[in-house]
């Protein structure tokens, strides 16, 4: 077998592989809409609704005496919005986005530290009767 023949064969194989890959790709894109027919938003919405129910039942179980710490701790946990602020600050290339992200990181940090620490201070005061 001379080199020319080899090259021809290789070329033929490569073309075949290309065709196969194209076919596969076509199959993939044909299958994808079927698999992704459910918009990811729906999954997020499902999680959101379930979380509403969880919140409803968990919060009704909170004793009224601890309603103030409840508000303070919800301040702390809702500041998990810092996650979005951090991603904007760290991933963005736009200076505006970085600046907005930085402000949001700072504001959310006040709440995280303030919220959890003031809750801790309050809860430390709730003591039982000394017997």
């Amino acid at each position, binding site marked *: 077998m001379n080199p020319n023949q080899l090259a021809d064969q290789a070329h033929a194989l490569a073309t075949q592989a290309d065709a196969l890959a194209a076919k596969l790709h076509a199959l993939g894109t044909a299958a994808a809409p079927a698999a992704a027919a459910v918009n990811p938003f729906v999954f*997020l919405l499902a999680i*959101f609704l379930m*979380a*509403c129910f*969880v*919140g409803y039942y*968990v*919060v009704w*179980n*909170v004793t*009224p*005496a601890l*309603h*103030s*710490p*409840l*508000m*303070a*701790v*919800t*301040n*702390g*946990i*809702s500041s*998990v*919005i*810092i996650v*979005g*602020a*951090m*991603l*904007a*600050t*760290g*991933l*963005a290339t*736009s200076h505006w*986005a*970085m600046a907005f*992200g930085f402000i*949001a*990181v700072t*504001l*959310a*940090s006040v709440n995280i*530290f*303030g*919220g959890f*620490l*003031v*809750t*801790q*201070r*309050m*809860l430390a*005061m*709730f*003591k*039982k*009767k000394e017997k």
Partner: protein
Amino acid sequence: MSASLTSLLYLIAAVLFILALRGLSHPETSRRGNLMGMSGMAVAVLATLVHAGMHASGYLLIVLGIAIGGSVGAVVARRIAMTALPQLVAAFHSLVGLAAVFVAAAALNAPQAFGIGTPGHLYVESLIEMSIGLAIGAITFSGSIIAFAKLQGIMKGNPITFMGQHKLNATLGAALAVLVILFVATGAQAIFWIIALLAIALGFLLIIPIGGADMPVVVSMLNSYSGWAACGIGFTIQNLALIITGALVGASGAILSYVMCKGMNRSIINVLLGGFGTDSGGAAAAAATGDRHVKHGNAEDAGFIMKNASKVIVVPGYGMAVAQAQHALREMADTLKQDGVEVKYAIHPVAGRMPGHMNVLLAEANVPYDEVFELEEINNEFSTADVVYVIGANDVTNPAAKTDPKSPIYGMPILEVDKAKTVLFVKRSMASGYAGVENELFFRPNTMMLFGDAKKMTEEIVQSLDH
């Protein structure tokens, strides 16, 4: 780190947050709950920090932001007086709202960071979610500032009402809706900021007509809003931790608002429309009853009566917080207990300026939580009490809520202090309470009015008990 692993960590953070709220079902488990909340936050922040593709200047800004914000937050949390808690919580709500506005602005400018399009070409659904998060966030921000100003005393607590107020609010609301549609259609920066400004104005206008003593509802409601704002942003940037937490907080605030409204027998709409407590009916009633006989006494009389009692129930209200009388009150209870008197505390759901306000103040003064009871738990016991010591509360004890269908507070659940043998009422004057209604109780033969500052009066009683 892979995106799936990061998402899993966010999920763990969310579960820890749920456990944090779960812990608050009892004081004994609450401290561990708070620790879980803190760990949840640590997990979420760390998972974000190791996100792929973060640039160095970004890290620098993040660390700087956390350092500045964190130290401010820590100092404030340490220094704040327990009586100032309601305004602190209001201030925190406004920060969550403002943070939501800025995250939305950042996402609009750098959508590729969250995979929601390219600058100027965001996905339509992302724009919808973003504008919802933005509007709620901005309303939470400005509404909480008004709540803060009213609670802090920078602004008068009276409701501020004017002609066509509700029409103006409705117009603003409609304009906001139109702008949101425009924003979703164009994705324009300018419209984004107009929405922000309009929502801020609406937040101010929504809260100014609501009076000081309705602040427990307002603070709870803004708590709920801050949660929904976080949720809106969570949907925009497709973050699990944010969506779940936002829903938890939103539900929590909504439940607290409901509990507070039920405690006053008013609908949330009635509270939100505002203007309560400005009725001139109160003044007329006061004039009509002007000449009725009121029995008043001094600290020695009160001390004598309490010393000879076998059961005393203390009913604290906002006046106790204002006078900072909780420590003197605990001292009084201790002295009485040494003399073999049984002392309990009864708390009305809307006592104070935020849910659970009185419980925290009593806990601060080292009152054991198992001596403090909620309305339903203790209402049957008033008939067996010899003395009820009402300190800084008024409307929540008014029997007119049960007997007078014309009273603005009719139907509101009250602490039935009138069933006790003697009612000692510490008050600065005969002025009516927030609802502007005369308290029938002042004129009862078994009521003794103790005029004076709540703290000073209680201290004088302690002295007279020591003799």
